[in-house]
């Protein structure tokens, strides 16, 4: 398993920026190509969205398909995608504040088993701790001060440093910056060069994108730049931070994408039934099923169209009006 990630790499991450193009050029490609070029074994991957919201499922499944190993997944709240990645060995570490299945399915069974056996690492941070790691990374500073985690065993276990305010003497936790090797982020719309808009809750994705050394976006829609210009305050991701843009409708499926579709609870059930029946092997079989399709379109194409239509309908019905 990869080493602990406490030491900020602010300077290395800045130096690394010189290696990627900041041109406002066409960066569209396929998920397969983007993952092949930008996700390497053992990398720290920042997973966009939280829990079952805007999870970059198309990209994660492509990572499975390409057989990456030894990844660290950073995500403030993780859902069953973390289990799938850990069960297959694609990842062996999560850096997170929470892993659960949700929707009444209780504890994360595969994660439990792997962590309790010492076969996977659960690096536990507070929710704000993860957020501030990204924010420090995005700001280009090696740490940010906070009261989060003070007094807790999270602080003690991570061996975080404290720092005294030079003006007041107040002692705060120093949260080290994090610059993931690559961010995988799903958005509602982007232009070809990677300017992207997120509808609804933005979660931590803007900071994650700016912090990361490389960024792959999937987008429900690719739109002309002129469409973004109509509402530029909604653009939360600037093209100069983005390395690859993938047009991927249903790119968060079976998780939700605000304004487009709700999460597919039948898939939660299918996953959990596989795990309850066959434990780790069940999770692996489920993962193999996900990765068995040629690409994400083939996967979503294999799902009952009526089910997908219903998810889209309820997703739209919940929009403010």
């Amino acid at each position, binding site marked *: 398993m990869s080493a602990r990630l406490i030491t900020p790499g602010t300077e290395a991450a800045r130096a690394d920026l010189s290696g990627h193009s900041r041109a406002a050029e066409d960066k569209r490609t396929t998920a397969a190509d983007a993952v092949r070029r930008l996700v390497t074994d053992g990398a720290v991957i920042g997973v966009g969205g939280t829990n079952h919201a805007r999870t970059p499922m198309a990209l994660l499944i492509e990572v499975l398909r390409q057989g990456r190993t030894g990844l660290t997944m950073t995500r403030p709240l993780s859902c069953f995608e973390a289990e799938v990645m850990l069960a297959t060995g694609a990842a062996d570490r999560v850096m997170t504040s929470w892993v659960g299945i949700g929707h009444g399915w209780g504890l994360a069974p595969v994660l439990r088993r792997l962590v309790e056996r010492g076969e996977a690492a659960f690096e536990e941070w507070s929710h704000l701790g993860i957020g501030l790691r990204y924010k420090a990374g995005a700001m280009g500073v090696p740490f940010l001060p906070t*009261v*989060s*985690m003070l*007094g*807790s065993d999270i602080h003690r276990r991570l061996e975080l440093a404290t720092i005294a305010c030079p003006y007041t003497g107040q002692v705060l936790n120093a949260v080290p910056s994090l610059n993931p090797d690559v961010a995988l982020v799903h958005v509602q719309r982007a232009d070809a060069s990677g300017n992207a808009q997120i509808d609804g809750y933005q979660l931590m994705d803007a900071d994650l994108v700016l912090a990361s050394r490389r960024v792959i976006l999937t987008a429900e829609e690719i739109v002309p730049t002129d469409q973004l210009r109509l509402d530029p305050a909604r653009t939360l991701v600037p093209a100069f931070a983005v390395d690859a843009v993938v047009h991927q409708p249903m790119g968060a499926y079976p998780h939700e994408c605000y304004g487009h579709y709700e999460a597919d609870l039948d898939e939660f059930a299918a996953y959990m039934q596989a795990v309850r029946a066959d434990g780790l092997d069940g999770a692996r079989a489920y993962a193999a099923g996900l990765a068995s399709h040629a690409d994400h379109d083939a996967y979503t194409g294999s799902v009952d169209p009526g089910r997908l239509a219903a998810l889209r309908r309820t997703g739209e019905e919940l929009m403010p009006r």
Partner: protein
Amino acid sequence: MIDSLIGSAEQALVLAQHPQARPDEIMTIAASRLLEDGKVLFAGIGQPLLAAAIAKRRQAPQLTVLLEGGMIGVELKPGEVPASTNEVRAAVGAQMLTGATDIFLMAQRGFFDYGFIGAAQVDRYGNVNTSIVGDPAKPTVRLPGPGGANDIASMCNQVVIVTQHEPRRFVEQVDFVTSPGHLTGGTSRHDSGLLHGGPGWVVTDLALLDFAPHSHRMRVRALQAGATLDQVHAATGFELLVHEELGYLQPVADVELEVLRHLVGRAEESP
């Protein structure tokens, strides 16, 4: 909330709990009564959000409810209780959607009056464990982790812990301090750098508990209707203090149960 306390044991003797209220409903409703109007509440999924929604429909219409997904001013839609603080059903009615880091920074600034958290284990000082059962280096049970609870417990002005009253939850010492309470009591919380807040209340199916001044040890403030002090002690794995004016909570009212069941879409079960 003290409105719902009955002062004397004599009066309490005549009280029985609402016959149709389940333990989780009793807790949710007791928690809802703690919420004053005009305050700001950092809620979580499940009981906290339901308690908030009940309060908004009863004594606290100007309560502002927010969720860790960055939703501010949410309104629970009856029958569509979200399964996560980070999903579209949790955003219904939001007046503002901000970032998930930003909303916790507002907590750190001090804007939030109440924070609601749950507990797998809680000790006499209100320290909460939702991380690990057993040895942290080799856990017997790996629990989900804090989610936002560590931050809520560190930053909100007053933390309310809502959990079932069982000996395996109310333990002598938590295996892991996920969300800091009063730590080892006295000034230890303040000494750790947590200059504000701390647990104010613990709401269970058997009692309402608070923390004694100075020592910050957990104390029975009031019993749920129909519960006895012996039951509470028996369900607690450490020595509890008892408030010198022990109170008794009003039983769940029909209207409270009705509001709750309407919210969760169990109207058919309503009393």
